[in-house]
């Protein structure tokens, strides 16, 4: 490799700049092509230019009058130049469309030359009246085009000349761009680009020799063609119309365009996404005793990550104390004033202690209370990265509070999360003021609470605040002790403590709150729960209680309430002992009766519809054929069956049934789950939304079904339930339904991911300016006042509540 192109091997000295491998930036070279070739990527632009200009005099094919009209129309563009992005305006669309008409012009309005028929055949062939144009001819034509005409065509002649689109010199990138690798065997393996350049040089030399030797034109043309091919595939090896250049192994070469393009290309892989230092990643697990805004960091990680410690006159004592330590909270590196970084080792610790002075930066190990960013992928919304406080703990996983899993969409079945340590003081300040967990309890999507308790936490609160919950003194003291409250509420006559009173002590003092829920009214007066039971509606995602607390007492009080109450809730479920077993799903005799009755009714109704259809007495729905009408009516009937089952279930509420209790509390499971386990599964869905139809030509899904049966059970209505087990036919139908939903899931994730990428790309530059309007990157006005009222969606619930209260 020519050492004037730069050096990458250590020890060598660059012949151009005299620097060594680390500092030499690399230098470009060039190849002189014996015959010019067309830059294939530009051939469409060359085609446009040839179409719109005279082949003899090089003027644009508009007459003087048209040019004036055009200039008047687009004066702004022509005068202001091209720096303000006018090229992609609608005006220029008009511009291109009127220019496109020029290709049909027969005669040049300036010199009167007849214009031959131009034909372009990709990638690089141009013909006039079916005579092939040589690249040098094309270059001559392009050279003739006047600068003022170029402006009309949208090209800035100060920035680029059309004749440059035909290459006579080829730029050669420095070795830094195409390093060669030495294999284990000592063999050197060159980069794909180098291979391509070698090809070009070889053909170029051969062409040169042949021309000098006076070879026949045919041979020269062939070699010229070959040179064109190599240059084309050097720029883009996936150019349509040419076979891709291949490696000896048959793998196609990755040339310039391939390096830039696509998800793994330079742009999206290396430039839009960057790799960082000061980060860690490990498995996450729960810890109910860690605060919602903390993260438990394993000691192993904390002792490797560092935070800068800026030494000043006022903290030099502290700095020396840290530096003198040999164990965990200590200093790993020292950065002196000239920016040199030194490792702190046991041998040089004493020396460094003497050296350290204000202005030095010490790199300290991560300690309790440091602010870090915590993230789980996919980062679908801004709540996927939040700032937490470090809590250094033993063991090897990150520990987080259960309440903070929702914004991350995390669970603990092996999920891993990333941790980043902001280094600069600005970054730490921004993380503290903008990204801390307490600022993000409410989602910007709809203003609903997103950092909340759920599942067991709600079950616990539900059982604690039920009307008939009474605790012994020991139990009450235990729960309140966990909450950090050291006084007991008033006991009743029997010396027992009401569960509601224990809950009331967790609430902020003097809180007033009322809400109607499905489980009756929920009333808090003066900080005491008077009436009602805590369910998902009052304590889970999207509740109004948190809005009220945050509004009246602030984010810190709300954060503490969430943390403390979740600890108590967890303690109480453990105390009360909520178990779910198979017996929870055993239907009692009443339910069994209902089930049989509902199924019988449904099947009867459906079969009478089928009868009506067969006797052609069915009243068709407007705009549908008889068959379609029947289909829709049966589906509607089967939906009715499901809601009947729901009614029957909720009528048969059993206070001792934990599964049902959980459903009512909203902590886990819904009516549909219960229905499918104790009643029947219902209609199984297909991708098209109708009933299951695929199968034999006699219109049956399975050979066990009578031909042409159009009843419910023949097309995926499952009458059995999970408790009693599925009949073979029902199992098959259920399998069809499961498969469909699995296919859905995959399709949905890919399609919604793409939709999200497009949305974010289109809207990412919009921001609220200081005049309250929304503008994009080019200062175009999108909205005069954001949202019409400037209210931040995060606090939209606050605004609504305030309005309600002020009435």
């Amino acid at each position: 490799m020519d050492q004037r192109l730069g050096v990458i091997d250590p020890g060598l000295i660059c012949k151009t700049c005299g620097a060594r491998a680390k500092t030499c930036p690399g230098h470009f070279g060039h190849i002189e092509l014996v015959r010019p070739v067309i830059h294939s990527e530009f051939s469409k632009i060359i085609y446009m230019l040839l179409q719109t200009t005279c082949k003899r005099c090089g003027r644009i094919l508009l007459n003087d009058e048209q040019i004036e009209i055009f200039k008047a129309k687009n004066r702004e563009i022509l005068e202001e130049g091209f720096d303000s992005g006018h090229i992609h305006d609608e005006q220029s669309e008009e511009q291109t469309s009127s220019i496109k008409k020029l290709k049909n012009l027969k005669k040049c309005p300036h010199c009167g030359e007849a214009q031959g028929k131009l034909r372009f055949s990709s990638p690089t062939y141009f013909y006039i009246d079916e005579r092939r144009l040589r690249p040098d001819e094309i270059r001559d034509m392009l050279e003739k085009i006047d600068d003022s005409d170029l402006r009309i065509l949208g090209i800035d002649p100060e920035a680029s000349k059309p004749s440059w689109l035909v290459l006579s010199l080829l730029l050669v990138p420095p070795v830094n761009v195409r390093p060669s690798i030495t294999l284990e065997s000592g063999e050197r393996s060159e980069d794909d680009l180098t291979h391509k350049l070698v090809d070009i040089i070889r053909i170029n030399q051969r062409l040169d020799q042949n021309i000098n030797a006076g070879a026949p034109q045919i041979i020269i043309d062939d070699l010229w063609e070959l040179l064109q091919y190599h240059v084309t595939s050097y720029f883009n090896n996936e150019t349509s119309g040419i076979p891709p250049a291949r490696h000896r192994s048959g793998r196609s070469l990755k040339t310039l365009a391939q390096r830039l393009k696509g998800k793994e290309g330079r742009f999206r892989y290396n430039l839009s996404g960057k790799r960082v230092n000061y980060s860690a990643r490990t498995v996450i697990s729960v810890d109910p005793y860690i605060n919602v805004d903390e993260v438990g960091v394993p000691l192993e990680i904390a002792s490797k990550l560092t935070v800068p410690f800026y030494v000043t006159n006022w903290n030099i004592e502290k700095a020396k104390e840290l530096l003198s330590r040999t164990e965990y909270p200590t200093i790993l590196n020292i950065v002196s004033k000239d920016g040199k970084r030194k490792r702190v080792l046991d041998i040089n610790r004493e020396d460094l202690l003497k050296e350290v002075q204000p202005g030095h930066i010490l790199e300290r190990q991560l300690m309790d209370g440091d602010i870090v960013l915590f993230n789980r992928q996919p980062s679908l919304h801004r709540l996927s990265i939040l700032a937490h406080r470090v809590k250094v703990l033993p063991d090897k996983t990150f520990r987080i509070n259960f309440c903070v899993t929702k914004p991350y969409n995390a669970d603990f079945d092996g999920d891993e999360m990333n941790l980043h340590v902001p280094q600069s003081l600005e970054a730490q300040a921004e993380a503290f003021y903008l990204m801390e967990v307490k600022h993000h309890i409410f989602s910007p999507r709809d203003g609903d609470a997103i950092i909340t308790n759920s599942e067991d936490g709600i079950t616990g609160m539900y059982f604690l605040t039920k009307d008939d919950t009474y605790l012994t003194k020991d139990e009450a003291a235990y729960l309140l002790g966990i909450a950090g409250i050291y006084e007991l509420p008033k006991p009743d006559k029997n010396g027992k403590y009401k569960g509601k009173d224990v809950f009331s002590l967790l609430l902020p003092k003097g809180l007033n709150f009322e809400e109607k829920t499905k489980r009756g009214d929920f009333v808090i007066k003066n900080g005491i729960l008077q009436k009602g039971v805590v369910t998902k509606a009052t304590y889970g995602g999207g509740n109004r209680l948190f809005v009220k607390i945050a509004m009246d007492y602030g984010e810190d009080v709300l954060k503490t309430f969430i943390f403390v109450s979740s600890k108590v809730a967890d303690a109480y479920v453990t105390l009360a002992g909520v178990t779910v077993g198979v017996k929870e799903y055993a239907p009692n005799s009443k339910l069994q009766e209902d089930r049989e009755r509902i199924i019988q009714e449904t099947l009867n109704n459906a079969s009478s519809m089928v009868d009506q259809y067969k006797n052609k007495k069915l009243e068709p729905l407007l705009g549908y054929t008889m068959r379609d009408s029947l289909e829709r009516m049966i589906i509607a009937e089967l939906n009715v069956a499901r809601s009947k089952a729901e009614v029957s279930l909720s009528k048969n509420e059993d206070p001792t049934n934990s599964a049902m209790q959980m459903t009512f509390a909203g902590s886990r499971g819904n009516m549909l789950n219960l229905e499918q386990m104790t009643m029947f599964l219902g209609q199984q869905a297909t991708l098209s939304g109708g009933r299951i139809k695929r199968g034999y030509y006699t219109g049956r899904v399975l050979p066990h079904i009578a031909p042409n049966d159009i009843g419910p059970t023949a097309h995926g209505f499952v009458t059995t339930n999970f408790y009693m087990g599925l009949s073979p036919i029902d199992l098959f139908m259920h399998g069809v339904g499961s498969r469909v939903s699995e296919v859905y899931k995959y399709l949905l994730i890919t399609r919604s991911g793409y939709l999200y990428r497009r949305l974010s790309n289109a809207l990412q530059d919009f921001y609220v300016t200081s005049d309250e309007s929304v503008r994009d990157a080019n200062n175009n006005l999108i909205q005069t006042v954001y949202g019409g009222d400037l209210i931040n969606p995060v606090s939209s619930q606050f605004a609504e509540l305030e309005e309600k209260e002020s009435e």
Partner: protein
Amino acid sequence: MAKKSNNYNVQYGEPVGMIAAQSVGEPGTQMILRLFHFAGIEATVTTSGLPRLAELVDAKKRPTTPITYVYIEDGAKKDFEKVEAIAKKINEVKMQNIVRRFVENFPKKRIKFFLNSQELEAAGLTSKQIASKIEKLFEVEAEAEEDAVTVRLQTTNMKIIRNTGVRIMRSVISGIEGVGKAIIQQDKKTGEYFIIATGNNLSAIMDVPGVDKYRLYTNDVFAMHKQFGIESARYTLAKELMHTLSEQSITVDHRHLLLIADAMTSSGTIKGIGRHGLSGQKNSVLARAAYEETVKHLINAAAFGEIDPMSGVTENILVGKLIPLGTGSVKLAMKSGDTSKVKKNK
């Protein structure tokens, strides 16, 4: 409305576009993919869920299932029969829907259409009306009989006779072209009747007497734009977005949806998001190259001499600078002029 809640305003520099995109994009996985959605038996089939959302933000020229809501003027809106009469006037009836069969008589130069009396009654038409309509449409002689119409032609050319027959069969004999399945529904709150019909032929429906022009609505954003202008397109877009999401019981603040609708319509025409719309029309070469069609954008920038203003998010990330949003949007303004008086800080 007086503003009460100044405490809850957005802060300057807030990247509201990105938040809107996240708010719509993040719950995407919770949506159903099913293209069609049956609500009850009687209602019309509409596209819903993710496909509908994609259709709206892509600014597809024609929705998969265009639907028009026709409200009736004050006088007649609670009168079922009058509403039904309007519905019949609107509902497209083609000749082939009401003809049992037709017979061509080539030597006698005539075609006889036998009408289905039940269908005729349902559409509220008489054979006389049909005959006059055919005369008007095809400039031929048409004679009405009971349950039949005879059309007389001037030529014996068999090809012309047959073609005319087929053309008559395909012609719209009553109602508005492209408007079908008109269903009358009652608003439960106000008790008024209104018509839901497939199709988006707004200009023709507006001409029907009795129709409340001010409340005419279709889910086709482009049809609304053509008929009522860009503001109405913006409204329709926002409303349809909100409807699509709330149908899936996904709650998204209306401000996000308004921003998307405004972004798509602020230029005066409807632009989709994505390659051919908003994203493809960014100023920055680098931003476009980083999105899609990398090579094409770089090549064009080189040939036309484009300059990147470096004012957006993507391009600043690419070069490793602060993004111009949020805390990065704050800039320092300084009076230029004589700096000699400024004391140097020692």
